[in-house]
C-alpha cells in the first residue's frame, strides 16, 4: 500500500501536505483511487470558498461510483487543480502528485490532529475486515 510518511491523512481517505507558505494541499489517497477505479470526473471547490472541517467540498467520480471529498481542516480554498478536472485519470496514475485543491488553514495547528501514515494504514486495514 502506497502511504507516504511525509503526508497527513483523514479517515475519509484524503491526503494533506503542509506547504512552505503555510497552505495545505489536499488530494485523495492511492488506496481511495484504487477502490474507486478509473476516474472520469472531478469537481473541485472554487477558490475563495470557506470550508468547515469535514465539509463535503469536492466530488470524484469513477466509472463505478461517485464519491465525496471532504475538507480535512477548516480554511479558505486558495487554489484548485484544473489539470485533474481536465484529466481525472491523473489521480489513478499518481494519487499523491495529482493534487485537487489548496486551503489556507484557519488554524495551522489543525493539521496536527490528522492521521499520520501509520494511523492511516491502521485505518485502511481495519476497513478491510
Amino acid at each position, binding site marked *: 500500500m502506497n502511504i507516504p510518511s511525509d503526508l497527513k491523512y483523514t479517515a475519509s481517505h484524503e491526503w494533506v501536505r503542509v506547504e512552505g507558505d503555510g497552505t495545505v494541499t489536499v488530494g485523495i489517497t492511492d488506496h481511495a483511487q484504487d477502490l474507486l477505479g478509473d476516474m472520469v470526473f472531478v469537481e473541485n471547490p472554487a477558490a475563495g470558498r470557506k470550508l468547515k472541517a469535514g465539509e463535503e467540498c469536492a466530488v470524484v467520480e469513477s466509472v*463505478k461510483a461517485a464519491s465525496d471529498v471532504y475538507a480535512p481542516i477548516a480554511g479558505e480554498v486558495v487554489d484548485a487543480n484544473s489539470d485533474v478536472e481536465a484529466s481525472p485519470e491523473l489521480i*489513478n496514475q499518481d494519487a499523491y502528485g495529482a493534487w485537487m485543491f489548496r486551503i489556507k488553514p484557519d488554524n495551522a495547528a489543525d493539521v496536527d490532529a490528522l492521521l499520520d501514515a501509520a494511523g492511516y494504514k491502521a485505518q485502511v486495514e481495519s476497513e478491510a475486515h
Partner: protein
Amino acid sequence: MSLKQTPLNAVHREMGARMVDFGGWDMPVNYGSQIEEHNTVRNSVGMFDVSHMRVVDIRGAGTRAFLRGLVANNVDKLKEAGKALYSCMLNPAGGVIDDLIIYFLTEDYFRIVVNAGTADKDVAWMQQQAKECNADCVITPKPELAMIAVQGPKAWETVWQVLPQAKAATEKLKPFQAAFVGEWMLARTGYTGEDGTEIMLPAAEAEGLWRKLAAAGAAPAGLGARDTLRLEAGMNLYGQDMDEDTSPLEAGLAWTVDLTPGRAFIGRAALEQNPVKRQMVGLLLLDKGVLRGHQLVQTAHGAGEITSGSFAPTLNRSIAMARVPVGVAIGDEVKVEVRDKLLSARVVKYPFARQGKALIALD
C-alpha cells in the same frame, strides 16, 4: 451468508481480479482498469466469466407448447435447430419476472439461460406453471454448467485457435444461433454489442478453457466492463431497467412482446389493459459529470428517472437509459438532477455504440 463462487473463482484471484458481491456471487468487477477492459472488447477480444447465470434445460414433447404460454415472445419464431430468442417472462400483472434467452435445440429439447439473481425464483415459477397446466415437459436447472463469454471483433478467431475442432460447427452460425460441439454449447450471443460467443460447458472444464483463451490473447474482463458495454449497446439489465413492477412495453422491450391475435401468454391481458404511459430513451449528458441510475429527469412532459447511467468509454461521454413520459421526443433537451445541480442532457435513440463505433452524434 457466504458468497457463491463460480468454478473460476481462484483463477480470477490469481489473475489480479478485484472481487465484489454481485447478488450473492463473489465475482470479478475488474482486473485492473475497467476502461481498458471495455476498450479491449470493443477493439479486440475479452472474456467474461458468466457462470453465475443459470442454464435451465426443458425436455419433453410439450416443451414448445409450454413455452408459448410462459414467455411474452413467440417461440414459434424458433424453427431452425440452435436458433435463439430473447424474451421476457411476465407475471400475471404484466411485470417482468426475468429476461432470458431460449435456445431451440430439438422439438423436445429447449435450453433457457436466465439471470443469476433471479434463477431460483425463475425455476420455481416455471415449475409451478408447468404443474398448473399439466405441461408434458421436465424442467432441469443445470448448475453444473459454467459459461464463458468471449466477446469482441477477434472473439471467434481466438476461440477457433483454442478450439480448432469447434470451427466447422460454428463458422456458419448466424447471430443468435448456437451449436453443440460434444457436450459444449457455443452460442453466437453476448451482452456487449460486439460479435462473439457464449460457451456453456461442464464446470470442471472451465478453468482449462479460460487459461487457453488467456494464452491466445483474450483479456479477462470483469462485470464493470460488462455493464458499460451493455449500456452502450442499449441492452437492458434486469433489476435496473425493468423488474416485476415494470411492463416490458415501458422498458423498451415492445419488440420482444408478440401480441399476434389469438396468442395466449401469461401477462398478456394486463399488458393490453394498462395504457403505456412511459417509454425508454437514451440520454447524452451535455454538461460535465456522470449520469447514474435513480437520478431524476425533468422533461416538458413530466418527470422521469434514469434506470442505468455511466461514463461511456467508447464515446468518452456520460450516457444513460431513462424511463420518461410518453411525449418526450428524440432531440429534446432535458434536465437531470445530479446532487445539487441540474445538468442538461439530450434525448437520443439508443444503442449508443456497437461494433466498435459510436452510433449517436456527440456534438
